């Protein structure tokens, strides 16, 4: 009997160990964020124990801080424009890279990929130098333009992956059955790469919204949300307000991405493939 128990324990060990590992990773990844969220309800301007009691006051202050609201609105505006622009341009580029044959195609694809590994700090500084050399005054436009530099290759990467999986003969079949190029794209290609487009759009938006380095160096008087957070963090009494605002923003993003994941899964099923691709697509965007 004892031997049997030992054998059973041995058999279960990998399962138990993997659960433990997942818990550990979750704690390391999300522990600090959860701590901040917790302290945003603490009735004290110092972020540390002891617990001084539950309050919603920091949320009220954040809500009433005009600067915070402006910053969030700025970020939303920039992110919406950047996501749309990079989605359109990136999809066109991905189409060209995967469907057309031209000299230097490999080089072009490599260049797109390489931008993804350049630190955002360097891109931000480069943008600052670029705009000041040209004598362009810094504004939300310059922020958006420089963010486009990193979100565009992201879209190219995600949409290319979708297009590569897509079988070319379907395009020929559509043409063969009488479709024009536009009809082929609309009825055959777009419905099937919709999950990739959705994932690309969401992450272009999130990258733009969350970006600090580029926004900081190429921004003017109007601040984006991360830049605003940085600017008021210098006074410690503002900490809980930042905490509260960040918690709301983080929660909103988590919900948005979760909702998008569900939507992409549905799109993928409609497209005839399983939901696994949706996950891989989300991971591509989440690497940063």
């Amino acid at each position, binding site marked *: 009997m004892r031997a049997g128990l030992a054998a059973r324990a041995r058999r279960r060990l990998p399962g138990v160990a993997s659960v433990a590992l997942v818990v550990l990773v979750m704690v390391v990844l999300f522990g600090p964020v959860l701590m901040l969220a917790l302290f945003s309800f603490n009735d004290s301007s110092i972020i540390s124990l002891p617990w001084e009691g539950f309050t919603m006051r920091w949320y009220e202050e954040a809500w009433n801080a005009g600067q915070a609201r402006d910053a969030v609105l700025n970020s939303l505006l920039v992110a919406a424009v950047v996501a749309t622009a990079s989605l359109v341009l990136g999809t066109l580029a991905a189409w060209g890279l995967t469907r057309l044959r031209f000299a230097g195609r490999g080089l072009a694809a490599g260049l797109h990929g390489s931008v993804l590994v350049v630190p955002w700090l360097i891109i931000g500084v480069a943008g600052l130098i670029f705009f000041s050399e040209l004598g362009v005054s810094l504004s939300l436009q310059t922020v958006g333009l420089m963010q486009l530099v990193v979100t565009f290759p992201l879209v190219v990467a995600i949409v290319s992956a979708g297009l590569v999986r897509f079988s070319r003969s379907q395009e020929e079949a559509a043409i*063969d059955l009488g479709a024009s190029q536009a009809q082929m794209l609309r*009825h055959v290609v777009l419905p099937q790469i919709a999950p990739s487009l959705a994932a690309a759009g969401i992450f272009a938006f999130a990258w733009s919204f969350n970006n600090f380095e580029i926004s900081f160096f190429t921004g003017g008087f109007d601040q984006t949300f991360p830049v605003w957070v940085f600017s008021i963090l210098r006074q410690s009494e503002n900490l809980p307000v930042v905490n509260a605002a960040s918690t709301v923003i983080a929660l909103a993003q988590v919900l948005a991405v979760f909702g998008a994941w569900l939507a992409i899964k549905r799109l993928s099923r409609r497209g005839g*493939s399983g939901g696994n691709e949706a996950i891989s697509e989300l991971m591509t965007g989440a690497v940063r």
Partner: protein
Amino acid sequence: MSEPMIVLDRVSRSFGELCAVDDVSLEIGAGEFFSMLGPSGCGKTTTLRLIAGFEEPDVGRVMLAGEDVTLVSPRRRNVNMVFQDYALFPHMSVAENVEFGLRLRRVARDQARERVAEMLTVVQLEGLGQRRPAELSGGQRQRVALARALVNKPAALLLDEPLGALDLKLRREMQLELKRIQKTTGTTFVYVTHDQEEALTMSDRIAVMEGGIVQQLADPRTLYEQPRTAFVAGFIGTSNSIRLEVSRREGELAVMELDQGMRVVAPDPGGSAPRLRITVRPEKIRIGGSSNGAGSRIRGQVVERIYLGSLSQTVVEIATGERLVVHELNDDEAAAVAPGDQVTLSWAERHSLIVDSDDGPQREERS
């Protein structure tokens, strides 16, 4: 042949250095089941794509139902293609897939529905219209691809190795099925395959291609019984190739004398070629046999004997060093031989097929 449906007039197509299709001329009749057969890279698929319009010829003309369509885009050509991987649209139901071409041509909804239902009946997929392609078996997907193309009533249906992805049993079923559908609809079928059995089973005529040229164009029986080149003889069925040094010519026959009264006899192609290359089909050769007549008689040693169910296959090495494959029916008369045995092989002179000669007209020189 009545008015040809498809005409290729001295068509060539190169990709860089490679000449995929080299000065090919073909006429395909209306309602014909026409196959292009050859190994991969022989130019058969490129030829099909030239007809479909996915490739443009460098030179030459493509005619469809009497009209020059060389420069017409594939969407405006009245031919439809069945792709090797079927290329079904996975995000559409079976019915939506089949209806796709009709929708683009703005056929009225009711009429389109009717034609889709009719076509699904022809391919025996009634009641599966609402399924997704992912929910179908390989054979069923194949039928959807056929229906999607045929519903447009094309002047010709182009099929690019459509059975390649199916297992052997299903492939045999689908061969008969394709032939049935072709007869039912009366559509011209142009069929590309590398499988000789498939081509022989279904086709009215077959173009055997190799190196971008048509080696021989004939009906299946002629290809098998009278191959014009060594390549055709080797590609269609098993071929036993023998180099024949002509010792003397006897009237209509070329004779190679060997020791002990043994000899190989073939119909003389004319001319004075000192050497001929002949082939003999395995089932035409008899083991033992007492052909004292005008036929070939040759001794050899059994190298291998394999039981194949209805047939026995015997490999015999003959005096010239060449090996011949012999097929015998496993009936009561089958010879009982074993490896190592000395046997005499015989066959009638008309079964020596000349596929090449040193100065013969059959030789296809290419620069």
